[in-house]
């Protein structure tokens, strides 16, 4: 008899706890405003990311197609996994007429980047920064190797 009462008691207790959980589920079912889910990618236009968000490394250019990278390789040395490679060329300085080194290609292997921000911190001239673009998937692995300086770009005047 005692066993039976206990058994039936457990059934009611279980039903009670089940209802407890289900009540919450039903609450959210009828209060869709309190749900936090975002409808990505439909909300691409309204998506807001933190200003420090690390998407990928980019090199901003101004309207004269000039960048601030002097080719000092601080970023290349700071990078933990060899993501950045800087190739040089010789250019003639317009004012003094002397030959000097300048960057030819700033090669960035996106596929190897861990987004640690060390290169950005290391750069003395703030020539590179993190963009907010995070949709990196691609069908071709080659497209992950990027050249950050635009073709024909030059060093900005006054940046040493």
């Amino acid at each position: 008899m005692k066993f039976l009462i206990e058994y039936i008691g457990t059934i009611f207790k279980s039903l009670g706890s089940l209802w407890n959980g289900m009540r919450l589920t039903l609450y959210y079912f009828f209060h869709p405003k309190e749900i936090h889910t975002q409808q990505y990618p439909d909300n691409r236009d309204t998506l807001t990311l933190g200003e420090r968000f690390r998407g990928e490394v980019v090199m901003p250019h101004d309207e004269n197609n000039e960048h601030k990278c002097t080719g000092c390789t601080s970023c290349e040395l700071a990078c933990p996994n060899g993501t950045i490679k800087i190739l040089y060329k010789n250019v003639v300085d317009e004012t003094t007429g002397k030959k000097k080194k300048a960057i030819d290609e700033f090669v960035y292997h996106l596929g190897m980047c861990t987004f640690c921000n060390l290169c950005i911190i290391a750069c003395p001239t703030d020539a590179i920064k993190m963009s907010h673009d995070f949709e990196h998937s691609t069908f071709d692995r080659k497209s992950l190797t990027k050249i950050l300086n635009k073709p024909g770009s030059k060093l900005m005047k006054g940046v040493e």
Partner: protein
Amino acid sequence: MIDKEEIEDLTQAHEEDFILNVGPQHPSTHGVLRLKIKLQGETVTHIEPHLGYIHRSIEKMCEASSYRNFIYLTSRMDYLSAHMNNQACAMVVEKGLQLEIPKRAKVIRILMSELTRLASHQLWWACTGLDLGATTPFFVGFRDREVILDIFDETCGSRLTMDYNVPGGIMFDIHPNFQKNVHAFLKGFKKNLPEYHQLLTGNVIFQNRTKGVGYLSPEDTISFGCSGPTARGSGVSCDIRKWQPYDGYEDVQFNEVLETAGDCYARYLVRMREMEESVKIIEQLIDNIPEGDFQAKTKAVLKLPKGEFYSRVETARGELGVYLVSDGTSKPYRMKFRSPNFSNLSALREIAVGGKIGDLVANMAMLDLVIPDIDR
């Protein structure tokens, strides 16, 4: 893929024995862990974890990178406690350099650690629910975790592998909205925590599946080197934050959560109450972040003196130890990580053998394993 040793194992098996592979792609192992289980009927008679499916030789990679760089590899060990891993590594370098970091950096580090712990426990809670057959907790847990991840996103720049520690402090100052957002999170979370208990803790099915299941004695806990909530569920006091306070934990008031039952339910309760303690720590510090620098001045190239250095932190899963041998150059001579999950996994045999196969999932869930941390 069956190797020779396994064939021997299989031939030695008793006729009624049944050998079962769980993993490496089983959802309840939360990663690429493979368990070889010997069953007699429904009873587990032997468990053998097989590792190596996600080995990336992080220790060796650390030896090839400089003292500034190796920190960021360790985010990929226990990715749910990425900040604590980074903190341990930054601390070991600071110990070598005998660098005192600014008060502000310390407080922000603790705040971030506790937020990471909360996020990690919330994820664990969500997945535990799912493992044991409840779907709603999964979404409820992720809902609150999302708020923390947004805070990380704003201040650190990324959501999971935050990479916020540098030798000498933290990478940038906190975002102006940081305090406001943390307050908003705390308010929401304190309102939601009873919901957690309502959904899972009080559920009779959940209690029946965890109470008295997977007993781990305090003696075994110590002999296997378990730490974190796994050990504290068996009544072994091992909180590094209490025993060897680092980065200013000595100045905050909080209790070490201990349960003595040693079963799955006890481990569950430890984590749930740890969340409350984390909230307490954050509440004490969030309005008292001291002014000043957030980073100590360091040289561009760090060189540690010859010698051995060790630092330990309490991650969300237990004690992480970082052992570093320096030969005086700019790269570590030897790195060794003592990861909490590896030791906790070794106790799985003690916990699950003798129990039913159905309870294995509950046992695994309450160990809260992160496999990349085991393999490194």
